[in-house]
């Protein structure tokens, strides 16, 4: 099982208009309610992003940034603390990706969620609460102006402002070097895998 490692696009930076989503502890059941997971592909999930926050019982649109025209083309989401907690469903970041989100800036992210984002090449960069608050307010006032999430430089630029953000080292390396799709890499050294297996008494040897 040795494959040539195919080139994967690097994600050095993402530029686009922003959308603010306020609130701590936004769980993946809110990002994509579980009933929309009754599918065998991820296609078409975009329109169900934050569905129950966006539509009332009779499917009438509610007051939510994702329902506002001015944010419809946004690709940079700005969130608060512990975003993406709860279920491991990759359907949640897949839905956001398909809605149009290419990068998320927040105070903090749940681990499985940021791992799932990384596997899709979506940066999840973090900044302190004050910076996030400022950015969310700015986005509200400047919905058609672009934000640049510079993963390589660990900065976020918007309007006249440039803020330093934290990009986890693993994420930085994977996105900038274009190694975020792990499959080929993980298959590349079968000898090392076999040596590991040989030390594990519970694994049937082949």
């Amino acid at each position, binding site marked *: 099982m040795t494959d040539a490692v195919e080139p994967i696009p690097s994600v050095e930076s993402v530029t686009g208009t922003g959308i603010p989503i306020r609130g701590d502890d936004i769980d993946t059941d809110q990002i994509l309610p579980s009933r929309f997971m009754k*599918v065998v592909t991820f296609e078409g999930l975009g329109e169900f992003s934050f569905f129950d926050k966006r539509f009332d019982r009779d499917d009438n649109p509610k007051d939510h940034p994702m329902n506002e025209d001015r944010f419809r083309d946004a690709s940079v989401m700005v969130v608060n603390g512990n975003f993406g907690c709860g279920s*491991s469903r990759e359907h949640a970041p897949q839905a956001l990706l398909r809605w149009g989100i290419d990068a998320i800036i927040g105070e903090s992210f749940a681990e499985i969620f940021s791992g799932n984002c990384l596997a899709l090449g979506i940066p999840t960069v973090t900044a302190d609460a004050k910076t996030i608050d400022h950015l969310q307010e700015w986005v509200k006032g400047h919905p058609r102006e672009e934000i640049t999430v510079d993963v390589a430089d660990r900065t976020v630029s918007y309007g006249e402002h440039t803020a330093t953000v934290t990009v986890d080292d693993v994420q930085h*390396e994977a996105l900038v070097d274009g190694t975020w799709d792990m499959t080929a890499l993980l298959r590349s050294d079968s000898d090392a895998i076999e040596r590991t297996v040989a030390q594990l008494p519970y694994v049937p040897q082949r």
Partner: protein
Amino acid sequence: MSTQTLYDKIWERHKVKTLPNGQDQLFVGLHLIHEATSPQAFEMLREAELEVERPDLTHATVDHIVPTDEQSRPFEDEAAESMMAELETNTQQANIEFSDPESGDQGIVHVVGPEQGLTQPGMTIVCGDSHTSTHGAFGALAFGIGTSQVRDVFASQTIAMEKQRVRKIAVSGELDDGVEAKDVILSIIRRLGTDGGVGYVYEYAGETIENLDMEGRMSICNMSIEGGARAGYVNPDETTFEWLAATDRFETDSDRFDELREYWESIRSDPDATYDDVVEVDAGELEPMVTWGTTPSQCVGVTEPIPAPEDLPAGRRETAVEAQAHTGVTPGETMEGREIDVAFLGSCTNARLRDLQRAADIVEGRQVHDDVRGLVVPGSHRVKAAAEERGFDELFTNAGFEWRNPGCSMCTGMNADKLEDDDVSISSSNRNFVGRQGSKDASTILANPQMVVAAAVTGTVIDVRELKEEVAV
């Protein structure tokens, strides 16, 4: 950095190499799969023209979408049927063992693994489900993954991970009658927060944990993720080994059991292991816990007042305001007396035989309240069969509960069991997130199994210890 903990030892044994991005590549000893998060991974594998590398270390079951009333095929719900059919095709093509309903072994993936002896100490276990942390109860390193990672594990039987810190949570004190493992973990999440475990693996230790049966340990490890920790574990001991000896894997192969036992004992945390953090918890004074809000950390003892948002730490106030608006609770009051519409006993947290046993003891001689719908959903067909041998099906049915077939049921809105409109439910499951149980206007009170059935028979949230006294008189 921690040293010589079970986590460190399992990590070292399974580490293939350090990858260029700084993550470690770990070998996966057991890959559990189900219908909700695997179809896309199989598809990605096909697109890459790859095959499942170790089908012999992969095991499938069906749980999220499976109906809990009529399980004959085709399922009435077309979407559910297509997911089931997809899993059947995929497991057949890849030669993966499948505990399907016909085998009599189907159930919730985190119930099936332990009861069949698939889950063992010293293993790395992954599954596309955040409650994979459950398997840590056996001293395994077990965590939930996303679908792209499911594909990676299919393709390589390994996974890329960053090593985390280890927080030891030492629990002491004897649990009051009516207080369960579930209450211990809810109180831990309340104290440390829903994101308190981010970056950590939790090692649960101390006399309270040692005195718990495997079911209780599983309930605790199960909800590690609700506290932000991707994995939690308990060191394996005689209680663990007794459970394992009775499973299919070892019942008739005591030689293999003895051989592996040596490994299992060797991977326990050393007495002089070091931890990145240690938290001590006194569970002796603990009451049965109930949630008042929309995250598992928003909970109180059943006789304790619901906090006012302004009395909470700064970071928790805003979400508390929103949560209280949703659930309609009143700060200063207790949750006692709050009327409920549905009582759900089930889920990977609390649907094992001993959970049903403890609940049955409360229900005996009582009837479900007229205004309440009560559901009992065993965690697996094996749990169901064992419960029926003990007559629990009759006991629950005669009391007015629905006795259903195994599945995730009302824990998550992917099957026919759902809350409606603004129903209030009390549930033995793990998440009270808005919309989680199928209706975005409904709300969920998390509680231990005894508390769930106590509420079912009285129609309101009640301290189950009061019912126990009633029997004693």
